[in-house]
């Protein structure tokens, strides 16, 4: 049983050997990209009626290119988006929100 387990571990290690340098370079590249990120946060005033609207915004804006963080408040009627300015801008995000059927009035932008 132990021998079998050892064989499996060795086989997995051998399989991973050629992949690991690639993975480590990817991690390094990712770290470098993070350093270069120009994060900005924008707050949009909107009109959401229910939790389904929140769900719709979350399901769509979360995956817009360059979006790093998203907070949707039903209570405050705001959509707060943190994005990488190298990849997108507030106007593009606003257009995405409007395309979903909700107004997006920019009320605040912060550089991070």
């Amino acid at each position, binding site marked *: 049983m132990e021998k079998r387990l050892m064989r499996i571990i060795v086989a997995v290690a051998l399989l991973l050997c050629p992949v690991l340098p690639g993975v480590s370079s990817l991690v390094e590249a990712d770290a470098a990209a993070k350093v270069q990120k120009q994060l900005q946060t924008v707050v949009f005033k909107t*009109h959401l*009626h*229910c*939790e*389904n*609207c*929140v*769900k*719709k915004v979350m*399901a*769509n804006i*979360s*995956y*817009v290119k360059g*979006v*790093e*963080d*998203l907070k949707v408040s*039903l209570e405050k009627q705001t959509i707060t988006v943190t994005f990488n300015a190298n990849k997108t801008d507030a106007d593009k995000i606003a257009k995405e929100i*409007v*395309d*979903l*059927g*909700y*107004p997006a009035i920019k009320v605040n932008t912060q550089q991070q």
Partner: protein
Amino acid sequence: MRKYFLPISICTLCTFDMLAFALPQTPVDTALIYADRKDTLTAATFTASGPANGLSKFKDVRTEVINSAGLCKMACCNLAESFENSASVTVGYSDAVTGARQIRLLGLSGVYTQMLEENRPAMRGLAAPFGLSYVPGPWLSSIQIAKGSPSVINGGESITGQINLEYRKPTDEIPLFVNASIMSDSRIDFNIASSLQLDKQGHWSTAILGHVCGNFAGFDMNSDGILDDPRQLGINLANRWLYYADSGVQLRFGFSFLRDQRAGGEYDPSFNSKKPAYNYDTYLKGDSTATRFWGSTILNQSINAYFKLGIPLNTDNSRNMAVVGDFSDYFMNSAFGKTKYDASQTSGFLNLLFQDQTLQAHHFTAGVSGRIDHYNEMFARPMPTPGWKTVNPISNLGIVGIFGEYTFHLEDKFSLIAGLRGDWYSNDGWKAVPRLTLKYAPIEQIVLRFNGGRGLRYSSPLTDNIGTLSTTKTFKSAHEYVSATNPSPLFASHTLEDSWVFGGNITLYFPGFGAADNSYLSFDCFCTQFTKQLLAIYDSSTTIDFCNPKRSFSNNYQVDFFVEPLKRFTIMATFRYTDARVDIFGLGLRERPMVSKYKGVLNLQYATNLKKWVFDFTASVNGPCRLYDYLGGGTTPVYPLLYAQVTHNMKGWSIYLGGENLTNFTQKDVLQGTAISESKAQGRAIKVDPEINTFDASCVWGPLMGIKIYAGVRVTLWKKD
């Protein structure tokens, strides 16, 4: 502003739907309409912000909610699989042949749990054994499991609780949703859903739902000579409509169609691919020179149509009435070895409700309801006395009744729901069904619940115990063989089963504990006591006895714990202990066989920011069950099950890869009976003789298949402005 009119009107309707989730004691149709109440938005917000699986804080009856995120934690190809990470509900196979899944709630068979589809009773009678497999998981938006004695509004059939299914809504702003998945056992699932809003004013909307699934290859992982899962091809179609008038009148109606064909049992080992080799006609002829393979074939077909009409009676919609109607036709054509069972069930249901919520603290609901079930069954099976037994019962079971329910709410502190039904049962006369629910929250962090009442249901002996058909044992009725002096056996009639259930729950919330404010610890205790029940007793090696036990009860205790220790990392742990006993005449009070004494479930979920990657891990430990006497008593072993899934979400689509039963545990010796003789065994892989009346393929307590790997994709197209 006109631009945003449609989304707002859709949201309004969605909010009504959510209100229905939040108030299980309230019928959907009346609640949904009555719109512009202050609590509506609050209720909706809470519903969506809880854990993917968890206890609802706000419901009066102890209710576990599995929302759409919870349904995505596992493969969840169908409803039965959706309960794998719940300790409240235990899922198992009815037998080793048909693939029928049965659930247990409070230690009792799933037939004692009232299934509701958006608060309409469903999956009754003939539909019960396979019904769970016929609800595609991707069609659902949430499931609510209410334990104990819920509202009287949907009839008195609930004994251990209610499971309500909420489907994708016509008002969902998703014109196209597609889900396709494949499993290593060759199971393929394809689902499509489309919600369309047909006019700018939001008056008309519709949802079209489609599902195709199949098992196209055979496996015999435990080498017992029969297929672990039957070959299967199923198709489901549904179309649901919503009309919402400016006056507040709301009409919902829909249709659905189902066809499912499956064949299981022995395969011919001389072929490379394992195909079911059973043929009823060949098997019946009994040609001793030919190899005769045992097995089963099942064809289930059904159609269903329903409507719900809600009419507000005053301007703020706090007084309203609703009419709910449902019609279904179900056909089952099946053969198991030499046994033939063909049956049809035509059912109609009508519910007329009036609801008054004009006073904030006092709500009243009253109504009348009627149900008719027309069964036409043909059952033929070899019996030692008087040889073949063919019964062709035609039953008309009618229930007509009136009901009333009073709800008192003292803000969020205290609520009381007292309900009473008076129903006339066509075979049994008048019966009263009282039910009471109390909820008390002395402080915000503690919720106490008490719940109790009566439940009554007509049994459907052969389909309630579909596993009996996967045996060749002789059927007895109340300890006697079917004969001229015992011509109307219990298995061919519908006993009105009668029970009482009482229970309580305490839930403690720990707002400062963990990264979120929704940590809780919950204790439940529920006791179900039958005053009349129909049971199939499998303890003898050669007979199955359908009888009414002298005493039957099930006590259940459960602990649930939920915490989010780190941001986006959740832990859900739950443990259930069951003490189910039955007193069969002459045998005394004994542990109910094949009911696991305990089950523990641990679910860990971690999601990266914005849920781009979601990792799920579920482990369960399944306690021992008492084995049948003919197997020498004793108990089954304790076994673990592991599930894992990785989901990657992207804009508009997600992909997932997962594994089930990662410990590769399978039940050995599923088939019980007398060893097959050498002459009969030639050209067959089966080890026991299905022609001797000791054969039993229903003794299933664990998984039949080992590791299963699956992968799938979900594509969601959201509505744009």
